């Protein structure tokens, strides 16, 4: 076994607490504090999967969010979570995980065969091969199976999730040394500080470098002290295991806090959430997100056992795991030295190839003292091995250009670490539009320290390219003081220099791709992006095929896709593309950084907004009555309305038929409480109505009601409803159920922005009134039993009148209006009496077999009368004239009401408009589909001119046949009898692959003279 435990006291794992876990069906032991990755490495598990495209063996590369390979499926059944990075999964007792790649089996992967044919699978392979739609279905099944990573759970999620909304004066993202020091400076000054860190414990990269000396103290002691003081500050809140994954406009940070993922399944609470989404509005944000080491690109650099140098160091120092015994490293910079020294002191043999001919002399001396074999001017041009790294091929590279100047030894090894420099974690800085800039000296895309101070965003430490500990800590002081100055707080404590034992850094070598002496594409595969199997040769190929923009190169090669979002690969990819394009790196630029920084489960994003709490539900006061009478409900906006009432032995159609017949022949009752109701008062309320409705309100006397069409400024119908005149300065408007809120906002808009001089006040009273519509020839008799103070006689209480009185002992407004065409009374009472009213009317109507009916019957009854439903029979392109409702438009009103002028627009006034008609099928039993197309001839030979479509369609119990409403070009002239002349009323409706002969008729099918409603 090559990788093994080194039990040293600085490790952040508890060797006294062994933990057993299962991976791919085998049992292993790790320790409290391990990640799944560190425990697997400690157990000698190297190969964790196969690569995406070529099926090459892959192992762990990184030690945190940057990990591209080690995607694991954790737990099973409903608790399973796909694609967790083993480097971020905290080990707990009984943890069960498996690899997500390698099909059909890890040891034999079908794709590894394709690896041998890889010159046939270049960048853009899928684009090129499957452009033929005929071929794709044949390949899709195999490719999908071979290409997948983890699988989503098939059962419902057992866990609950929580959302937290908070405000902070300052949010500090990142709990490394800079973030901690900044939070301390700000917290000491009394600011409300929220500190977020994605790891189990605070400390950031310092946890991987325990030998650092800060301010004369060992690094861990310095950490312990600063954390203790932070925790003692009352206005500082610290969240660990909390990953800030998005930064949005106006300083909104989203972060996900893992509350239970680290606990054994048996210890997890069912009553508390698994994860919590924090949405934090911050006046100031300090990004101390650090940097991620990128590897160098060289031949066979994807073999298991090849990691970033910093990952090797982290596994050793933080987790007590040496990934190998014979370690070869290569670096372009100073950062790999500490790890090399630590590995050598831990007993590994370490060869460090420094691509610079002149390394940092202080580090060189320290490395020699630790027993590291430093080879200046050397690089690793390729790794050897098949399932794991076995050796490294060293070459001499020239001092001034990235080319081979001489041969070097091949050194056997079982672990290989490389460092190509640090890439600042600028993601959050860029989410809301910030762009990083290329720092040629630091060889990194960096964010400025003062960030966007004008909007309260600051950056400190590695993210700014300040990679040395001492200068970074001093920068933390500066940024702290800038934030304090911006908030008007005085700084507390002195800002003295903080010394560390870190030597002054010298410049890194500018190298991304280590040369192998061959033309790109002819040597061993050199991977840039492991997760997407993108090689340096792929990027060169994309450029040869004339992809110029880095955004296009990304999409063509898949560079930077996937769960790691290119955290290791992007800068190398950009640099290789720049070289191939003959441009500078800043000219090539970066791709766009978008949320989320790391994957977030849908459950967390949804939080508690699921099931009953997904959206508020609105119930009418009569709801309990409906439930008791077998109502089947439908959602209308947020309202629950009875759709129909089922009696024993009935199906939906039978129920609707029974309800319709009751309303037409006897008496029905409908809950109309959901209609939007707006109370308008003021001296100019009448004038206001004249302006917002198409018809005239000038003559409407108290005690009278009128139907109105509300138009938008294009002259198109947007809402309709009945408005009653309560008094000269007081009107009660009703709107459609779904349009209530929109109409109120529309009216307010016009009043406030255009006509603030009008004295009118609007109040939504939808919820204040409950409405029962008593409908049918016997409705008067029913109402008479519970109402004694209103004269209900036809001569006194006429159609479109309203009266104030007492119904069932309750003060009521009774409107004699009708949406069914029958004699009908709509009784409105205080909503608190709605249930009482409903029950009283049902009791009074019992002798007449009063029948509650729902929205289905309501729709059918109104369609028989040709009454439109705005939004069903209209679609925002219908004028009152298209609806044949000129009677509802008053062109003589002095004020040019909303929409009037647009009637004269050439398109609105022109011919060939779609207009409302009725349709009768030749075969009365056929009910047309709503949405069926209206065409001229029975033959369907595309292209077919579409004359219109069916908007409403039912089987009418009253007529014993089907009826439909439709909008048809020039429909009004086509209606029988006028349209019969030229046979223009004969058309066809097409749906479900069949054409049906239809006749265009008036949309009023029942009682065209209105005798019933006027009875």
């Amino acid at each position, binding site marked *: 076994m090559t990788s093994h435990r080194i039990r040293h006291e600085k490790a952040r794992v508890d060797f006294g607490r062994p933990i057993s876990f299962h991976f791919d069906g085998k049992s292993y032991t790790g320790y409290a504090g391990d990640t799944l990755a560190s425990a697997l490495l400690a157990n000698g598990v190297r190969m964790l999967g196969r690569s995406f495209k070529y099926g090459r063996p892959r192992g762990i590369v990184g030690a945190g969010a940057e990990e591209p390979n080690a995607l694991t499926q954790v737990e099973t059944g409903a608790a399973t979570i796909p694609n967790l990075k083993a480097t971020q999964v905290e080990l707990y007792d009984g943890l069960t995980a498996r690899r997500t790649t390698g099909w059909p089996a890890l040891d034999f992967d079908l794709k590894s065969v394709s690896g041998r044919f890889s010159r046939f699978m270049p960048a853009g392979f899928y684009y090129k091969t499957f452009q033929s739609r005929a071929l794709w279905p044949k390949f899709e099944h195999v490719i999908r199976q071979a290409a997948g990573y983890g699988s989503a759970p098939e059962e419902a999620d057992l866990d609950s999730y929580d959302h937290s909304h908070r405000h902070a004066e300052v949010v500090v993202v990142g709990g490394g040394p800079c973030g901690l020091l900044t939070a301390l400076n700000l917290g000491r000054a009394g600011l409300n500080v929220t500190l977020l860190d994605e790891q189990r414990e605070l400390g950031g990269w310092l946890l991987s470098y325990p030998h650092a000396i800060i301010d004369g103290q060992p690094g861990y002691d310095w950490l312990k002290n600063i954390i203790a003081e932070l925790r003692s500050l009352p206005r500082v809140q610290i969240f660990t295991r909390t990953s800030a994954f998005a930064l949005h*406009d*106006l300083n909104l940070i989203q972060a996900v806090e893992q509350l239970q993922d680290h606990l054994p399944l048996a210890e997890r609470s069912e009553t508390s959430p698994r994860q919590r989404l924090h949405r934090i509005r911050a006046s100031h944000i300090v990004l101390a997100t650090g940097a991620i080491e990128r590897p160098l690109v060289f031949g066979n650099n994807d073999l298991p056992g090849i990691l970033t140098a910093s990952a090797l160091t982290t596994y050793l120092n933080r987790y007590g795991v040496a990934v190998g015994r014979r370690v070869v490293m290569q670096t372009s910079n100073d950062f790999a030295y500490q790890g090399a020294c630590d590995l050598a002191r831990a007993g590994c043999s370490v060869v460090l190839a420094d691509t610079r001919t002149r390394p940092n002399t202080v580090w060189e001396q320290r490395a020699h003292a630790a027993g590291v074999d430093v080879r200046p001017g050397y690089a690793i041009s390729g790794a050897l091995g098949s399932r794991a790294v076995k050796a490294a091929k060293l070459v001499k590279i020239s001092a001034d250009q990235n080319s081979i100047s001489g041969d070097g030894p091949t050194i056997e090894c079982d672990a290989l670490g490389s460092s190509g420099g640090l890439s600042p974690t600028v993601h959050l800085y860029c989410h809301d539009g910030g762009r990083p800039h290329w720092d040629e000296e630091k060889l990194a895309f960096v964010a400025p320290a003062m960030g966007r101070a004008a*909007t309260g965003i600051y950056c400190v430490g590695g993210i700014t390219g300040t990679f040395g500990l001492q200068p970074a800590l001093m920068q933390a002081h500066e940024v702290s003081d800038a934030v304090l100055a911006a908030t008007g707080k005085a700084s507390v404590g002195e800002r003295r220099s903080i010394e560390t034992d870190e030597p002054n850094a010298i410049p890194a070598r500018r190298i991304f791709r280590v040369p192998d002496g061959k033309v790109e594409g002819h040597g061993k595969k050199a991977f840039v992006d492991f997760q997407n199997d993108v090689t340096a040769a792929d990027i060169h190929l994309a450029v040869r095929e004339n992809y110029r923009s880095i955004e296009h190169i990304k999409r063509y090669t898949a560079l930077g896709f996937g769960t790691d979002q290119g955290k290791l690969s992007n800068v190398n990819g950009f640099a290789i593309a720049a070289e191939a394009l003959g441009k500078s790196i800043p000219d090539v630029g970066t791709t766009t950084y978008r949320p989320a920084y790391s994957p977030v489960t849908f459950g967390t994003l949804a939080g508690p907004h699921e099931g009953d709490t997904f959206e508020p539900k609105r119930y009418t006061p009569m709801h309990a009555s409906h439930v008791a009478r077998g109502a089947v409900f439908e959602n209308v906006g947020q309202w629950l309305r009875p759709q129909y009432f089922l009696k024993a032995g009935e199906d939906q159609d039978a129920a609707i038929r029974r309800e319709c017949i009751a309303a037409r022949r006897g008496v029905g009752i409908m809950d109309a409480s959901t209609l939007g109701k707006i109370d308008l008062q003021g001296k100019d309320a009448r004038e206001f109505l004249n302006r917002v409705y198409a018809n005239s309100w000038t003559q409407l006397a108290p005690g009278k009601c009128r139907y109105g069409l509300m138009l938008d400024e294009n002259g198109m119908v947007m809402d309709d409803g009945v408005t009653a005149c309560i008094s000269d300065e007081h009107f009660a408007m009703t709107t459609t159920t779904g349009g209530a809120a929109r109409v109120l*906002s529309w009216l*307010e808009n016009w009043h406030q*922005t255009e006509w603030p001089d009008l004295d009118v006040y609007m109040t939504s009273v939808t919820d204040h009134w409950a409405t029962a519509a008593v409908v049918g020839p016997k409705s008067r008799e029913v109402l008479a039993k519970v109402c004694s103070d209103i004269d209900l006689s036809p001569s006194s209480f006429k159609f479109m009148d309203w009266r104030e009185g007492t119904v069932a002992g309750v003060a009521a407004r009774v409107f004699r209006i009708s949406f069914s065409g029958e004699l009908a009374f709509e009784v409105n009472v205080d909503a608190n009496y709605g249930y009482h009213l409903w029950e009283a009317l049902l009791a009074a109507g019992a002798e007449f077999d009063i029948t509650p009916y729902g929205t289905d019957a309501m729709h059918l009854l109104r369609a028989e009368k040709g009454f439109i439903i705005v939004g069903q029979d209209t679609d925002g392109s219908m004028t009152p004239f298209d609806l044949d409702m000129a009677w509802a438009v008053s062109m003589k009103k002095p004020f*040019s009401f909303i929409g*009037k*002028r647009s009637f004269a627009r050439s398109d609105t006034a022109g011919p060939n408009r779609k207009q409302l008609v009725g349709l009768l099928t030749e075969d009365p039993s056929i009910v047309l589909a709503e949405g069926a197309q209206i065409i001229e001839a029975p033959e369907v030979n595309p292209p077919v001119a579409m004359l219109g479509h069916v908007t409403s369609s039912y089987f009418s119990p009253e007529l014993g046949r089907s009826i439909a409403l439709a909008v048809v070009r020039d429909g009004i002239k086509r209606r029988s009898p006028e349209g019969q002349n030229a046979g223009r009323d004969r058309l066809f409706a097409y749906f479900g692959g069949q054409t049906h002969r239809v006749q265009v008729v008036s949309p009023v099918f029942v009682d065209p003279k209105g005798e019933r409603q006027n009875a």
Partner: protein
Amino acid sequence: MLVLFCPHCQEKREEEEFGYGGEAFRIRPASPDTADDDTWADYLFMRTNPKGWNWELWSHATGCRKFFVVKRNTATNSIAGSWTLSDGRKVYDAEGGSQ
């Protein structure tokens, strides 16, 4: 998600409390019936739609229901301020209207 200041409630609130009302200070022709087609079409259909500072109408839909104006940069989402309709009009005019 924006944070907007309602000049009537004197409160900074999350965007979900507000409704967007489009470009502010559009003028309805004084006598639509005599406005020619071009004038009417311009009023109906044309908007400035700038990249940069934009005066826009918002309503505090779940609050006071009042409409007010916000000067927002459409490219950066920076917000210069919120005003009541009448106060905003003065600032807008002082800036030279839509310029």
